[in-house]
């Protein structure tokens, strides 16, 4: 008969809280930085100089067609050989940002390309300079158009960050692993870990659905398609 002992895992709750906190911190930072990278890359692909386009395409395709764990190992184990030494947390943050940046570039590009030409012309005729046209007229509704896809990708990155425990970044899956190595309750520890991830992904979706319309592209842009 199988006997499950969740109490043995739950009494180590401070570890779980600390792990979840690092997962949240890594996700928040990489979401902000990765989206910024994505916007920059999308801008370069749509309006940038022709010479900048193919490096962006190469970056996007390379990242999207290799596993995150290999990218993480490359950053953490590979870069020190090239003279760049990183802490596990820094390596995790860089890998997550690079990863999200590539996906966000494609997502944001789709939003930018759907911008009606008339809006750009109208903005120019109001004597806005190119920077203002992009940041104030083109980008906010473009982000509004692709927000659900971007939110989905940020959640995928958050779930993917569970791999960062493999390089000893003390995030949630690392702590679950630590708990099971102490009390040998592996199934219970990972089940609770998975439940916390599920809760975090639901919370994150709610939060981003709120943040997007309120702070980034405005409610009207979100509803008025």
């Amino acid at each position: 008969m199988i006997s499950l002992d969740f109490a043995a895992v739950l009494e180590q709750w401070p570890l779980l809280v600390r792990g979840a906190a690092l997962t949240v911190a890594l996700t928040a930072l990489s979401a902000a930085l990765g989206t910024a990278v994505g916007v920059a890359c999308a801008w370069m692909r749509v309006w940038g100089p022709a010479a900048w386009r193919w490096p962006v395409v190469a970056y996007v395709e390379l990242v999207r067609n290799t596993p995150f764990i290999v990218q993480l190992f490359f950053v953490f184990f590979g870069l020190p050989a090239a003279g760049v030494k990183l802490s596990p947390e820094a390596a995790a943050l860089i890998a997550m940002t690079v990863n999200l940046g590539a996906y966000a570039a494609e997502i944001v590009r789709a939003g930018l390309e759907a911008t009606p030409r008339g809006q750009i012309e109208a903005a120019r005729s109001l004597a806005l300079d190119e920077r203002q046209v992009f940041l104030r007229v083109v980008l906010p509704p473009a982000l509004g158009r692709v927000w659900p896809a971007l939110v989905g990708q940020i959640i995928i990155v958050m779930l993917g960050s569970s791999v960062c425990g493999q390089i000893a970044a003390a995030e949630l899956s690392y702590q679950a692993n630590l708990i099971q190595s102490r009390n040998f309750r592996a199934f219970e520890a990972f089940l609770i870990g998975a439940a916390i991830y599920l809760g975090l992904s639901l919370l994150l979706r709610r939060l981003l659905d709120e943040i997007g319309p309120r702070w980034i592209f405005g409610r009207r842009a979100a509803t008025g398609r």
Partner: protein
Amino acid sequence: MVDFTLWDILRNLMLAARWTVLLSLAAFVGGGLLGLGLLLLRLARPRLAPLVVLHVRLFQGTPLLMQLFLAYFGLALLGLDVPAWAAAALALTLYASAFLCEIWRGSVEAVPRGQWEAAGSLALSFGETMRHVIGPQALRIAVAPTVGFLVQVIKGTALASVIGFVELTRAGTMIVNATFQPLAVYGCVALMYFLLCWPVSAWSLHLERRLRRERV
């Protein structure tokens, strides 16, 4: 001390890549069959639909790594002494089934409602409607995202390395431990994944563009 040339590294990685391909195919086929079953269950028995939705939400809302650990340690808890590849195949199959079920549900919903009503008015059964009316139309829409998801499955198999299955990533780690050349080896590992995934991505994009052209 044995010296590893770049060719030795590549050759060993290529040998290990077989297992990545095999595991991907097993998970994709298994996940496809299970996903199709779940989708049909959802369409044919609306009262059971919430269970299918729960399955999808659970597997889409938790990390694949946790699913792998749960399969690995869960099967052991049941008293089954399973090898790592079996646990990995099980977890990846369940993972793929959730995503494919959701992709195909979207494809079925993209078929105009009138098609269901027309099939109903011809007194076709559920099976006949799916086989002759909805299925073929949904299939056309589903092909591109399904091929695109295959890339996710191939990349997902890299996590099987964590529970000790020697596929491409694990082989890379073992070679790093022997050669102390992480930059070159993980670069080669990434390149091999790229060579596996990129053609599939390009094919998916091609199918998507063709479908869009046909619709216009």
